[in-house]
């Protein structure tokens, strides 16, 4: 018997999730341009207007979208047309499907049911992310190969070597956190991050796994192929794997990158920044560690928790955009050395130390 309520809730959650993710990604295209302008002492995109209304260029994404849709969509001759079309779809699918296990807030109790804010509440959440996130390599490889161009093929080889190398670091940096939480379920992970050390230090992942968090970010940015790891893409100089794409297909690659920024920020928030948890906030209000309380109504607490989650995600997104416009690009040998000689051994060290500490504390 199918539980129709659960099914309907899932459908609604999917629609909401896609609307939120796409909405943020659209705004991000503008934020990225504006932030680059700020950091390079320019004004940035501010010309797009509707009937003279400009609102600091926020209509720019619409202008971009119209341009992209109306551009000529050129498929190079002698390319493999089917795979050429399939590659951006795979890339897009891989970054969007992993949002299925990201909890967008605390579980809510509506009409006697506990509704999880996760689309798919499965007990292998993190493994699901690693499995489907790894499929993004296919997008790169197929895009580079099917274009029938040696430069795109070389870029695809560079890109897949980079993504496979940093996937190892990414997995290793998360295993420490998995060992501490003892679960792969994302909602459960956030719930495990409540509680305090010495009564006042929140037990967030970043405090229990500082090295893991430090290793996760570069590995994740390298997976997303953004500066300083944008060797497979670097549109203007050494040619990227999606050079032979134009119009909306090229836009899909670009858009997938922005969606992945949101995803990395959300994953970091859930695993290392305590998800929706606010320090000292309980279901009935703030309990200060120095004594005293501040009572808040229940609905207000829940709203605060949702806002906290989105605030943390926004902070991480902004951090990644800052990194994008601050650092220069790595050379290929530097990239490989960083991945295999520094990040990987540090990841193994983190794993060993975490294991020893857990045995001493007696959690295993």
């Amino acid at each position, binding site marked *: 018997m199918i539980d129709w309520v659960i099914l309907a809730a899932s459908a609604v959650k999917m629609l909401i999730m896609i609307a939120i993710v796409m909405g943020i990604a659209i705004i991000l295209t503008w934020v990225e341009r504006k932030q680059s302008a700020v950091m390079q002492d320019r004004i940035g995109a501010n010309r797009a207007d509707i009937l003279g209304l400009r609102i600091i260029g926020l209509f720019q994404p619409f202008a971009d979208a119209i341009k992209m849709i109306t551009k000529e969509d050129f498929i190079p001759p*002698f390319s493999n047309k089917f795979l050429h079309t399939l590659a951006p779809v795979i890339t897009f699918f891989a970054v969007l499907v992993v949002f299925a296990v990201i909890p967008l807030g605390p579980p809510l109790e509506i009409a006697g049911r506990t509704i999880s804010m996760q689309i798919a509440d499965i*007990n292998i959440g993190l*493994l699901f992310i*690693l499995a*489907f996130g790894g*499929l993004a390599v*296919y997008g790169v*490889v*197929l895009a580079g190969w099917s274009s029938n161009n040696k430069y795109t093929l070389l870029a695809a080889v560079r890109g*897949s070597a980079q993504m496979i190398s940093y996937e190892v670091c990414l997995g290793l940096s998360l295993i420490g956190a998995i060992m501490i939480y003892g679960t792969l379920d994302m909602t459960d992970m956030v719930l495990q991050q409540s509680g305090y050390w010495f009564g006042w230090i929140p037990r967030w992942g970043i405090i229990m796994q500082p090295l893991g968090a430090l290793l996760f970010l570069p590995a994740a940015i390298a997976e997303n192929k953004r500066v300083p790891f944008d060797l497979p893409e670097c549109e203007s100089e050494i040619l990227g794997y999606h050079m032979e794409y134009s119009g909306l297909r090229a836009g899909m690659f670009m858009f997938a990158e922005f969606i992945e920024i949101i995803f990395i920020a959300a994953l970091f928030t859930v695993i290392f920044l305590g998800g929706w948890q606010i320090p000292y906030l309980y279901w009935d209000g703030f309990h200060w560690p120095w004594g005293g309380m501040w009572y808040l109504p229940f609905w207000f607490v829940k709203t605060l928790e949702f806002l906290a989650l989105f605030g943390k995600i926004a902070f991480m997104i902004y951090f990644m955009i800052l990194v994008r416009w601050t650092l220069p690009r790595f050379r290929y040998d530097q990239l490989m050395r960083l991945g295999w000689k520094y990040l990987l051994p540090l990841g193994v060290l983190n794993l060993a130390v975490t294991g020893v500490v857990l045995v001493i504390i007696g959690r295993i």
Partner: protein
Amino acid sequence: MELILFIITALVALVSAFMVITRRTPIASVLYLVLTFFCLAVLYVMLGAQFIAAMQIVVYAGAIMVLFLFVLMLLSQRGAQTWEVAGPMRKWLGFAAAGGVLLVAATALQSVGVSDTVLDPEIGTVSSVGSALFRRFLLPFEVASVLLLGAIIGVVAMVKRKPYPSETEEGVEHGS
């Protein structure tokens, strides 16, 4: 509902497996094999073995097939390269090998017997697989990892061979 899903998945798995061995270009074969692995992962999920399904995608569809694709693309950039046509001898040997594998699988399944018993839903979860792997099958697990380590060391030793004397005399540089 579940039956319909099973029939669709099984059909796609069978058709794509058939395509793997009938396609002329190796890359098409590899991509159909990836599709087959995905269908297998779906079947694992329907059996309640979520961990196995995730591993199927991470290890086979993700890591190993990407390497296959990688090598094939470097070998045949235009996609024009096709499988070389095997002679009659190799063709019959292939049929014989496939028949042998089928026979072994059939006898193995015969000894188990097809039963209607419902699988334990906990059998494929992370914790049950983990405790089986690290308690009951700890020794085989560790032996397998030592074997893999040996393979890695062997590859490195082969790649880092000493240059031939003639090459060093001519001053040919050898990369790492």
